[in-house]
C-alpha cells in the first residue's frame, strides 16, 4: 500500500491550543504544585490534570457535532488497547497499550491519539482498579499519542516499522517513564526532593526498560497490519481527516 504523505503540514489552531495545554500548562501545574503548594496537595494537582486532559477532548469533539463514526473508531482503538492490557496482565509492564496509542496518533492525528490514550488509561482502570494514579496514566498514555500525531504531521515520524519502533521505545522510556516516576514519587512520599526523585528513577529503570522494549516489540509486530487496516477504513468510509 502506498504511503499517504500528509498534505497539510500546518497545525490547526485547535491542535496548537491543545499542544500548549498539554506541553506547557499541565507540567506548569505540576511544578506549581511542587514549588508553591509545598507539594502537600498532590491529589489536588492530580485532579487538575484530569480536568486538563478532558479539555482537549472537549475542544475536539464537543464544539462541533461529532460524527458517530469518529467516536466509534476512537472507542474501538481504546478498547483494543484496554483489551491488550488485560490480555498481558500476567507480564508486568509488558503491555501493548502505548503501541496502539502511537498507531492511533499516527493514523488519526494528535488529538485522536491523545483521546485513545487517555480513555484507555481511564477505562482499563475500571478493570485494574482506579486510584490516584489514574490521572497520571491517562496523561502519560495520552501525551505519547499526541506527540506521535504531531511528529507524523510534521513529517519527522514515518509510518515505517523502524521509525515507529525507535519512536515508540524512546517515547515509552522518556515520556512515560519520566512522568510516571514523578507521579509515583508524589503518591508515595509527601515531600519532593531531587534525591528521592533520582532514587525513583533508578528503581523504576528496569520497569521502564521492559515497557520500552514491549512497546517497540508490539510496534514491530502489529504496526504495519494495523496501519494498513486503519488507512483502509479511513479511505473506505472517509473518516476524521476529510471531515475537517
Amino acid at each position, binding site marked *: 500500500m502506498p504511503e499517504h504523505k500528509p498534505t497539510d503540514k500546518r497545525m490547526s489552531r485547535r491542535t496548537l491550543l491543545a499542544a500548549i495545554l498539554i506541553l506547557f500548562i499541565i507540567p506548569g501545574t505540576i511544578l506549581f504544585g511542587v514549588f508553591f503548594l509545598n507539594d502537600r496537595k498532590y491529589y489536588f494537582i492530580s485532579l487538575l490534570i484530569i480536568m486538563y486532559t478532558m479539555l482537549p477532548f472537549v475542544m475536539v469533539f464537543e464544539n462541533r457535532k461529532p460524527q458517530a463514526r469518529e467516536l466509534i473508531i476512537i472507542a474501538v482503538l481504546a478498547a483494543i488497547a484496554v483489551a491488550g492490557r488485560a490480555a498481558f496482565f500476567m507480564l508486568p509492564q509488558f503491555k501493548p497499550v502505548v503501541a496502539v496509542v502511537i498507531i492511533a496518533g499516527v493514523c488519526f492525528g494528535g488529538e485522536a491519539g491523545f483521546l485513545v490514550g487517555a480513555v484507555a488509561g481511564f477505562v482499563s482502570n475500571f478493570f485494574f482498579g482506579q486510584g490516584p494514579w489514574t490521572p497520571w496514566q491517562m496523561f502519560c498514555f495520552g501525551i505519547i499519542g499526541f506527540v506521535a500525531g504531531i511528529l507524523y504531521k510534521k513529517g519527522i515520524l514515518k509510518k515505517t516499522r523502524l521509525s515507529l519502533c525507535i519512536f515508540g521505545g524512546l517515547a515509552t522510556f522518556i515520556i512515560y517513564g519520566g512522568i510516571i516516576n514523578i507521579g509515583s514519587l508524589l503518591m508515595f*512520599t509527601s515531600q519532593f526532593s531531587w534525591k528521592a526523585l533520582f532514587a525513583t528513577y533508578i528503581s523504576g529503570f528496569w520497569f521502564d526498560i521492559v515497557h520500552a522494549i514491549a512497546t517497540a516489540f508490539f510496534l514491530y509486530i502489529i504496526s504495519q497490519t494495523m496501519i494498513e487496516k486503519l488507512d483502509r477504513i479511513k479511505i473506505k468510509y472517509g473518516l476524521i481527516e476529510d471531515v475537517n
Partner: protein
Amino acid sequence: MKDAFSTFHPIVNFAYFTGVILFGMFFLHPILLGIAMISAFTYSVMLNGKRTIRINLFYMIPMMLLMSLLNPAFNHEGKTILFYLKNGNPITLESILYGIAAACMFVTVILWFSCYNAVMTSDKFIYLFGRIIPSLSLILSMVLRFVPRYAAQIKVISKAQKCIGRDVSQGNILRRAKNGIHIVSIMTTWALENAIETADSMRSRGYGLPNRTSFSLFCFDNRDKAVLTVIMGLVTIVLAGSAAGENTMRFFPSIKAAKVSFSAIIVYCAYLILCILPAFINIMEGVKWRHIESKI
C-alpha cells in the same frame, strides 16, 4: 445484602463521594484521619465483602508499611532526631509520624475509590455527564462494552481458525505465535468494520438529536432531597471548621495539632456522620425491612 445507598439518585452518590474523597485527601488531623479510614473500611467491606479484607491484608498493609518507611528515609525535617543513618542523614520522629499519616490518608482514599467504583456504575456516570460531555461519556460506555465483546469474538474466531488448523493450540511455538497474531489481526478488522456498522445504525436511530433520554432513568425524589440536604449541611460544617483551623495539623518542624475544643468536637461529629452515612443508611434499611417482615 443489597446496598441501599446505591439506590439513591446518581447526583447524591456523586456529591457524596466527591466530598469524602476530597476531604480524605486533605485532612491529616489524626482524629479526622481515623474517622475517615474506619468508615471507608466499614463501607467498603459492606459493599465488596470478603474481597476487601483480603486486599487490605495483602496490599494495603504492606503498602502502608512501605510508605511509612520510605518517608523518613528521604525526609529529614523535624526536630526530634531519633538516630542517624550510615550516610549521616538523621531519622526524625516527625518524619516517621508524617509517613504513617500520609500512608493512612492514601489507604483511605483508595478505600473510598473502591466504594466509588462499586456504587457509581458506568450507567450512573453516563447519566450524570451525558449532558455536559456527551461524546466523552458515549465513548466511555462504548469502550466498557467493547472489551468483553471482543473477548467473546476472539473465542469465536479462534474456534473457526481451529477448524483449519490455525489455532494458538496447534503447531510448534513459532507457528502458534503466528496464528495468535493472525487471530488478533482478524479481530481488528472485524472490530473496525463492525464499528462502522454500529455507527451507521446509531445515526439511523437518531443519535445526536436533541431531547433523547438515557438508558437508565433516575427520579430525584424526596428521599434524595433529604439525604442531599444532610450531606450538604455536613460538608458545610466540616468546611467551616476547616476554615476556622479546627482540623489543621502541622508536622514540621515539630508536631502541633489543633486543640480539641467544643467547636472542634462538633466538626469531628459532623465528619463522622458524613463518613458513616452510607453504612448507616444500609443498616437503617435493613432494620426497616426486618420490621416490615416481622409484621407480615
